[in-house]
C-alpha cells in the first residue's frame, strides 16, 4: 500500500498553512481570470510563470493547479451572467444558464454549476488518483517508438479536431512545430532557423509564444471588434434561499453524475478537450429530460450536466499529462511548460522520482475544489464587479501584464518585439478561424517528438520500421484511426445539436 501512504503524504504536505494559502491564491486568481472575458486558464498560467520563479516547486504547482480548476468555475459565471446578445452558442452553459438568469433564476443556475463542478471535480480527481498510478506503472515499459506513436496521436487529434477547419488546425500545428524547431538542435548542437540572432539560439521561450497568441493576439482581436456601450450583467437575487429549491436539487444530481461519467473519459483521450464533453453531456441531458420543453428556455439540467462534464474533463486531461507527459489541450501544454521550467518532466517516471510532489499536487486539487465551492457562491457579488471592469482598462491591463511577463524572462526588448509579432499572428489566426491551441501544443510536443524519433532510429540503426513494429505503437496507430472516426462523428452530432438549438432559439 505504498500508494495510499504516498497519497496521505501528499495531503499532509498540501495541508500545511503556507500551501493552503497558495492554493487559496491559485483558486482566487483562477476564478478571477476565468470570470474576466478574454483571459483563460492557459493564458493565466503562462502570464504567472515568470512571476513564480521565486516560489519553491510545490508552491508553484499548487498555484497552477488552483488556477486550472478555478478558471473552469469562473468561466461558467461569465456565461450565465453576461448578457451578450448575438453571440453564437459556443459555450453550452450559456444556452440554458443565460436564459435561466434572464428569467430571474440566475442564482439557481450559478449554484447548480458550482455544486456540479465540485461534485465532478472531486469525483474526477478521485478517478485521477486511482487511474494515474496504474497508467504510470504501465507507461514505464513504453519505449521511444511508443512515445512517438502517442505524440503522433496527440498531433493528429489536437491539430485536426480543435477548431472548425481541419486544414487550418493542421496549419496551426505546423506553425507550432516550426517555432519549436527554432534554436539549437539538442543532439548535434547545430543552430536551426536562428537567423544569426543570439537570443534565438536558445529557442523562443514557450511563455512568449503562449502569452503572444493567447494574451496579445486575443487583446488585438477583441479590440478590432470591441463591443461598445454599457456592460449588461444580469442581476442575481440576493440571499441563500433563492439558490436552489428542492426540485432544483432533485433535477440536478443525476445530470451531475452523468456529466462526470461523460467528462472524465473524454478528458483522458485527446479528442478535443472539454468542449466535446460538454456538448455530449448537453445532448444526453436533453434526450433524457422529463422537462424537455424547457430546453432552450432555461432547463437546469442543461447547466448541471455540461458544467459537471467540463470539470470532470479537466481532471481527465491530467491523466495523460502527468503519466505520459502528453498535453491534449492548450492549458495542459502550458502546464507542461510550467513543469519544465522547474526541471520536472511529467511522465511515468514522475510517479517514481517525485511521488511527494505529484500527490501534493493531486491533494491540492481536492482542497482547491472544496475552496471553490465554499468561496464562490458567497463571493458572487465580487465576481459581478469583476465582470463589470471597463473593457478599455481590462484589455490595456492584459497587454501590460503580457509585456511584463515576457520582459521579465530575459530582460530583453527582443522578447517584447517577438511577443508583439506572435500576437499579430494570433490576431490573424483568430480572424480567420485558425485554432491557436495546436500551435502551442505543437511547439511543446515537437521537440520531444523529434528526440524520441531520433532515439528510436539510433537504436534500430536507421530502420524506419522500428517506428511501427512495437505492439503498442501499432495498436496506437490503429486506435488513432478509430478515434478520428469517432471524434468526427461526435463533432457532427455536436454541430447538429447546436444547429437545432440555434434554429429553435432563432
Amino acid at each position, binding site marked *: 500500500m505504498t500508494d495510499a501512504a504516498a497519497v496521505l503524504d501528499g495531503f499532509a504536505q498540501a495541508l500545511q498553512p503556507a500551501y493552503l494559502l497558495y492554493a487559496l491564491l491559485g483558486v482566487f486568481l483562477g476564478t478571477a481570470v476565468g470570470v474576466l*472575458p*478574454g483571459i483563460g486558464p492557459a493564458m493565466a498560467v503562462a502570464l504567472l510563470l515568470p*512571476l513564480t*520563479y*521565486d516560489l519553491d516547486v510545490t508552491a508553484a504547482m499548487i498555484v497552477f493547479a488552483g488556477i486550472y480548476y478555478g478558471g473552469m468555475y469562473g468561466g461558467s459565471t461569465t456565461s450565465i451572467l453576461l448578457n*451578450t446578445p*448575438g*453571440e453564437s452558442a*459556443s459555450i453550452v452553459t450559456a444556452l440554458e444558464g443565460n436564459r435561466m438568469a434572464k428569467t430571474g433564476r440566475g442564482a439557481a443556475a450559478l449554484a447548480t454549476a458550482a455544486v456540479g463542478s465540485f461534485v465532478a471535480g472531486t469525483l474526477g480527481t478521485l478517478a485521477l488518483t486511482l487511474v494515474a498510478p496504474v497508467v504510470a506503472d504501465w507507461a514505464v515499459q513504453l519505449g521511444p517508438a511508443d512515445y512517438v506513436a502517442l505524440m503522433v496521436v496527440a498531433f493528429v487529434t489536437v491539430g485536426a479536431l480543435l477548431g*472548425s*477547419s481541419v*486544414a487550418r488546425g*493542421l*496549419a496551426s500545428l*505546423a*506553425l507550432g*512545430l*516550426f517555432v519549436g524547431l527554432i534554436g539549437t*538542435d539538442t543532439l*548535434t548542437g547545430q*543552430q*536551426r*532557423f536562428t537567423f544569426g540572432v543570439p537570443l534565438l539560439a536558445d529557442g523562443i521561450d514557450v511563455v512568449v509564444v503562449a502569452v503572444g497568441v493567447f494574451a496579445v493576439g*486575443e487583446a*488585438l482581436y*477583441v*479590440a*478590432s*471588434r*470591441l*463591443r*461598445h456601450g454599457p456592460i449588461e450583467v444580469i442581476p442575481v437575487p440576493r440571499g441563500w434561499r433563492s439558490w436552489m429549491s428542492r426540485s432544483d436539487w432533485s433535477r440536478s444530481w443525476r445530470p451531475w453524475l452523468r456529466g462526470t461519467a461523460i467528462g472524465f473519459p473524454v478528458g483522458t483521450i485527446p479528442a478535443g478537450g472539454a468542449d466535446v464533453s460538454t456538448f455530449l453531456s448537453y445532448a444526453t441531458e436533453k434526450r433524457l429530460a422529463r422537462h424537455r420543453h424547457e430546453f432552450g428556455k432555461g432547463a437546469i439540467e442543461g447547466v448541471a450536466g455540461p458544467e459537471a462534464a467540463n470539470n470532470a474533463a479537466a481532471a481527465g486531461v491530467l491523466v495523460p499529462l502527468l503519466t505520459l507527459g502528453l498535453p491534449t489541450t492548450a492549458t495542459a501544454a502550458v502546464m507542461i511548460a510550467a513543469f519544465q521550467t522547474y526541471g520536472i518532466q511529467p511522465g511515468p517516471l514522475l510517479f517514481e522520482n517525485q511521488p511527494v510532489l505529484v500527490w501534493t499536487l493531486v491533494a491540492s486539487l481536492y482542497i482547491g475544489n472544496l475552496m471553490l465551492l465554499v468561496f464562490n457562491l458567497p463571493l458572487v457579488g465580487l465576481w459581478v464587479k469583476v465582470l463589470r471592469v*471597463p473593457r*478599455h*482598462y481590462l*484589455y*490595456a*491591463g492584459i*497587454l*501590460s501584464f503580457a*509585456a*511584463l511577463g515576457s*520582459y*521579465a524572462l530575459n*530582460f530583453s*526588448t527582443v522578447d*517584447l*518585439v517577438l511577443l*508583439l509579432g506572435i500576437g*499579430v499572428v494570433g*490576431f*490573424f489566426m*483568430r*480572424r*480567420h*478561424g485558425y485554432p491557436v491551441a495546436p500551435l502551442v501544443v505543437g511547439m511543446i510536443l515537437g521537440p520531444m517528438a523529434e528526440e524520441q*524519433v*531520433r532515439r528510436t*532510429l*539510433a537504436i534500430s540503426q536507421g530502420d524506419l520500421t522500428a517506428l511501427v513494429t512495437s505492439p503498442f505503437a501499432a495498436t496506437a496507430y490503429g486506435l488513432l484511426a478509430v478515434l478520428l472516426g469517432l471524434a468526427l462523428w461526435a463533432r457532427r452530432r455536436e454541430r447538429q445539436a447546436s444547429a437545432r438549438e440555434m434554429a429553435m432559439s432563432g
Partner: protein
Amino acid sequence: MSAPATTPDPPVRPGARRVEEYVLGAAIVGLGVFVLVDTASIAVPGSANAVGPRTFPYVVGALLVAAGAAVLTATALGRLGEAEDGEDVDPEAGTDWRTVVQLVAFFLAHAWLVERAGWPLALAALFAGAAWTLGARPWWRPVLIGLALGVVLQAVFATGLGLSLPPGLLEGVPILDD
C-alpha cells in the same frame, strides 16, 4: 438595444475576407518553402546518425506546404474560416483597423522606452495609450492609473521578488531601484 440607423458592415467584407484568406494560406506555403530551402543550410556534423538535424525540419516544411495548400483549396471552394467570437466581441462590428494599428504602435513605443525611460514609465505609456485607444476618457485618468500600476509593479518586483526592472528616469528612488 435600438437598431442602428444604417446596416452595419459584416465583420469582414466577403471579398476582402477571401483575399485575406488567400494571403494567409500563401504565407503558410511560403514559410514552408522557406523552411525546406533553409534546412539545406543546416550543418550536419559527421557524427550524426541516420536522422540528423535536417530530417525533422524537412518534415515540418512539407507539412507547412501541405497545410497551406489545403487552406488555399478550402478557400477556393468557399469554405472560409469562421472568425472567433467572444463575450466582448461585437458580432456586428466591422474591423476597426485604426485601433489595431494604434495598439501595435503603443506596444512598440513601450518596447522602445523600456531601456530609455525605464520600465515604470514605459508601462504607463503602454497602459495609458492602450486604454485611451479603446475609449477611456478623460485622457488623464488612464495616464494616472498607468503610472500607479508601473510604480507599484516596479516596487513589488524590486522588494518582493528581488528582480529589478530597469528604473530608467526613476533611478535612485528608494524601493523602486533595487
